[in-house]
């Protein structure tokens, strides 16, 4: 791997993580509660714990937050949507 490509990969990763961190802070503060009512009253410890995951999965969560449709309902024979 050339050093230019390596630089590109590392910088892209850092930008993704940086944006993720900024998004994550907003998400654990407000967004999580929009998605899941149980999270709206979550403790600060809980918010801190979900911060890394929020930063890592930010594109998915951003999409959900924008659509704000509540927690997804899985469909399977064992759990049909209500």
């Amino acid at each position, binding site marked *: *791997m*050339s*050093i230019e490509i*390596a*630089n590109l*990969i*590392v910088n892209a*990763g850092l930008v993704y993580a940086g944006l993720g961190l900024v998004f994550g802070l907003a998400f654990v503060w407000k967004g*999580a509660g929009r*998605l*899941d*009512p*149980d*999270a*709206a*009253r*979550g*403790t600060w*410890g*809980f918010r*801190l*714990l*979900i911060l*890394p*995951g929020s930063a*890592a*999965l930010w594109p998915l969560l951003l999409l*959900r937050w924008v659509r704000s449709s509540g*927690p*997804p*309902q*899985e469909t*399977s*024979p*064992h*759990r*049909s949507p209500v």
Partner: protein
Amino acid sequence: MGHAYQAVGWNRQKKIYDRTLLLGVVLYLAVFLGVGFALHPEATAETMILRALGTAAFMLLHVVLAIGPLSRLDSRFLPLLYNRRHMGVTMFLLAFGHGAFSLLQFHGFGDVGPLVSLLVSNPRFDSLAQFPFQLLGALALFLLFLMAATSHDFWLTNLTAPVWKALHMLVYLAYGLIVMHVVLGVLQAETSPLLAGLLVLGMIVVLGLHLAAGWRERALDEPLDQLAREGFVDVGAFEEIPEACARVVTLGGDRVAVFRYGDRVSALSNACQHQNGPLGEGRIIDGFVTCPWHGYQYKPDCGASPEPFTERVPTFETRIVDGRVWVSPVAQAPGTYVEPARHPGRAR
């Protein structure tokens, strides 16, 4: 069960579990460092610490992987399963420490940044002996991070159980990568038969336990569908089901827990709504089917959790004919009341 999320829903068991875990890890690190320095007084502290952390994480990964099949084989191991996530997160933190120390030691002082150096410093992908094994470890660490970061119940709910499960199945990929990382890295530097033997032993234990548990479940799952009569399936003799316990059968691809209590029989989906825990391995306590994993409860005749909880599991029609229990493979909507079948000879 609707409640505000906390960081950790502490209880006595979890505290004992975590204390034991922490003590074990600290003891291991202390012994490793003590013995390591005694045997290799020339080694640097950084080297020793990164080895201690790496081996601790690798061993803990074996324990994490063994707990699932062990508790399926023998319910006495269930307490270990109870707080496995904390063990998983602990394992990630150890692995992270190992990775961070390695990055600093091997890539921290060059002309390019440590991450760039990690990517470019060793391009010998075509050589087995010189393979850039650190990249394998880095990839595994990334997967472990994804799992550790999503271990809270919030993620289970908001990613949905199937997605969450699929994500956490990556632990097997991570295990494979780490084995390669160890084989191509450590075992090249130190061609010790003891280390190689331990590695193989670990793989045999992990693989063997998974095969054993899978084989046993296949035997339990053996479809009884051939005995269909009026669409119902014979799931065995009433007497064979222990009082207040269940027999688990596979009907139409779904696992169904058939509970006996008194002279009655009720059938529910085997999958707990909380985290797909095996309801059929639980018991009826105070009139409620109680999940063995975290104690969620369901009424046996309608599959609904007691007020104020709202969980519901599907129910199945049951019949008792000539002392044998028959169950319809058609799942009723979660929470549907189904008249329990009664054993006439057992009326109280």
